[in-house]
């Protein structure tokens, strides 16, 4: 029996059982669609969780000066002055695993606007910092390279600072606030980030060019830390190694000397992220597996029923000279699952 005849018979059989054919198709369609939808939803939520976690900066690397002995006295890391601007520039220009680098110097003090004042921290940074810490400007704009070069007296205010310095709700952009005695022009307001996982208010910040903070506020020539973003969370380790070798060679450390800096990455965050996405994967695999199994059993039942109700027809076809293979082929046109039952019928 040739393929054309088989197809014709199969189509006729489907045509004779329109409703069942439709319901079976519906079942299969819904089953497959639900599996696909579920996978898509799963993938989506996995990505969204991932995005939320990396929002916290899972690929962030922080470089602090390391504590070092001077003579026999161990020094506090804060007093060390080993990170300099050229170190930052070297990291900016020479690394291949880092997408963004920003130096950081910070100073605490009182911000004053007219008769309102509020104690906050002033961070001296470059625009890269925004990408590293996933901060964005809600209103106004970020300072640029020219501002950094000229140590411009500009700043961006966090939401909390704005609320306290401008309680009347007036627009702070273009206004001048004072940090201790230094006047800073407000060029932008930061997007609110709320509190972080430690309960610290992330909106309680003021950002300014690092040169401004170093020269005009602190009058220092060293950096308190350098913030970097690895290209991706997985590349954090390579980035760390690269930073280490660059800084060691720049600081001319001997092979047996300890690092005079300290690199920290968000290991905990990345572990959490990994375990979350692993859990997600397992969960999805389980759900998809169960749906497929249930769907498969459903389809199998329909197949079994359609073969059982065909035993007479199969017997007749056998009697007029169909071979076992013809019957199997015919059913294969409907579905492969019918095979086992058919061969049983043929053999009995």
């Amino acid at each position: 029996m040739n393929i054309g005849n088989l197809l014709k018979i199969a189509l006729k059989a489907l045509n004779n059982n329109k409703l069942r054919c439709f319901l079976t198709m519906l079942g299969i369609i819904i089953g497959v669609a639900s599996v696909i939808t579920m996978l898509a939803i799963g993938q989506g939520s996995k990505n969204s969780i991932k995005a939320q976690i990396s929002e916290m900066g899972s690929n962030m690397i922080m470089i602090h000066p390391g504590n070092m002995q001077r003579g026999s006295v161990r020094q506090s890391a804060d007093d060390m002055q080993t990170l300099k601007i050229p170190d930052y520039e070297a990291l900016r220009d020479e690394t291949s695993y880092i997408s963004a680098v920003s130096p950081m110097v910070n100073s605490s003090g009182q911000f004053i606007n007219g008769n309102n004042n509020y104690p906050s921290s002033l961070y001296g940074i470059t625009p890269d910092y925004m990408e590293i810490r996933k901060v964005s400007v809600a209103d106004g704009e970020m300072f640029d390279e020219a501002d950094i070069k000229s140590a411009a007296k500009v700043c961006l205010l966090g939401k909390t600072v704005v609320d306290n310095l401008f309680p009347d709700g007036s627009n702070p952009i273009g206004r001048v606030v004072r940090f201790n005695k230094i006047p800073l022009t407000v060029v932008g307001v930061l997007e609110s980030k709320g509190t972080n996982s430690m309960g610290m208010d992330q909106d309680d910040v003021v950002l300014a060019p690092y040169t401004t903070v170093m020269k005009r506020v602190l009058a220092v020539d060293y950096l308190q830390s350098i913030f970097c973003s690895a290209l991706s969370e997985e590349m954090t380790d390579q980035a760390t190694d690269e930073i280490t070798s660059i800084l060691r060679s720049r600081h001319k450390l001997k092979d047996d000397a300890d690092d005079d800096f300290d690199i920290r990455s968000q290991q905990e965050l990345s572990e959490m992220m990994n375990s979350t996405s692993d859990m997600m994967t397992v969960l999805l695999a389980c759900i998809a597996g169960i749906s497929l199994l249930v769907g498969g059993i459903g389809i199998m039942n329909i197949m079994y029923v359609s073969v059982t109700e065909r035993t007479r027809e199969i017997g007749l076809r056998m009697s007029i000279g169909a071979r076992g293979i013809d019957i199997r082929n015919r059913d294969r046109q409907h579905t492969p699952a019918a095979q086992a039952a058919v061969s049983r019928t043929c053999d009995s």
Partner: protein
Amino acid sequence: MDNTDYIIKVEHLRRDFQVGGETVHALRDVSFTISRGEFVTIMGTSGSGKSTLLNILGCLDTPTKGEYVLDGSSVRTMSKNDRARLRNRKIGFVFQNYNLLPKTTAIENVELPLLYNPAVNAKERRQRAIEALEAVGLKDRMEHKSNQMSGGQQQRVAIARALVNDPVIILADEATGNLDTRTSYSILVLFQDLYAKGRTIIFVTHNPDLAAYSSRNIVLRDGRVVSDVINPSPASAREMYASLPNDED
């Protein structure tokens, strides 16, 4: 009877079934030959082994012992597929309950055996199916579906289906069993016409009245042939049919 011109030869046929631990002897030593052009009725009470014999004659089953030669080929040693081929080319089946495919037109039912014969193309298949339906007087019902026809008409379609492959024998299993007397005779008329045209027919039945219309009657009892009588002058089913009152008039 010319012994060399036989269609069917069975010799010392035995068929045993294992039922539980017991062996049931359905056929014990059955031997006969059927020549070309005979109309044989095989009769027997239920349990006499006639269904088993029919299954073996129809190549659906193989004997435990003994020889069965159908049109020159020995069936006993054949493979399953060869037997299927033999059924397709040499045997036409007519069943008690017609066994037409449901929701399928008469002509498609008749075409069915030819679908399994790759030597026949679609055009020839159609042509032969039309001829077979003409032969059973159903030319005007070709496109009727099997559930839109009466029992007698369905049985005619089934006979057309049995004829379409031009088989050497027609095996009928209680072919009139489901029909009323009048329709039964109309089917018998058809069989007698086929017989008159030289077809070999084996008609299995438990109805002793039918023996009179065949040319030979074999009676089975307990798996043995108890009588094998040639009927030199079969009664005419057409006369009987004509004599029966027609309810529709």
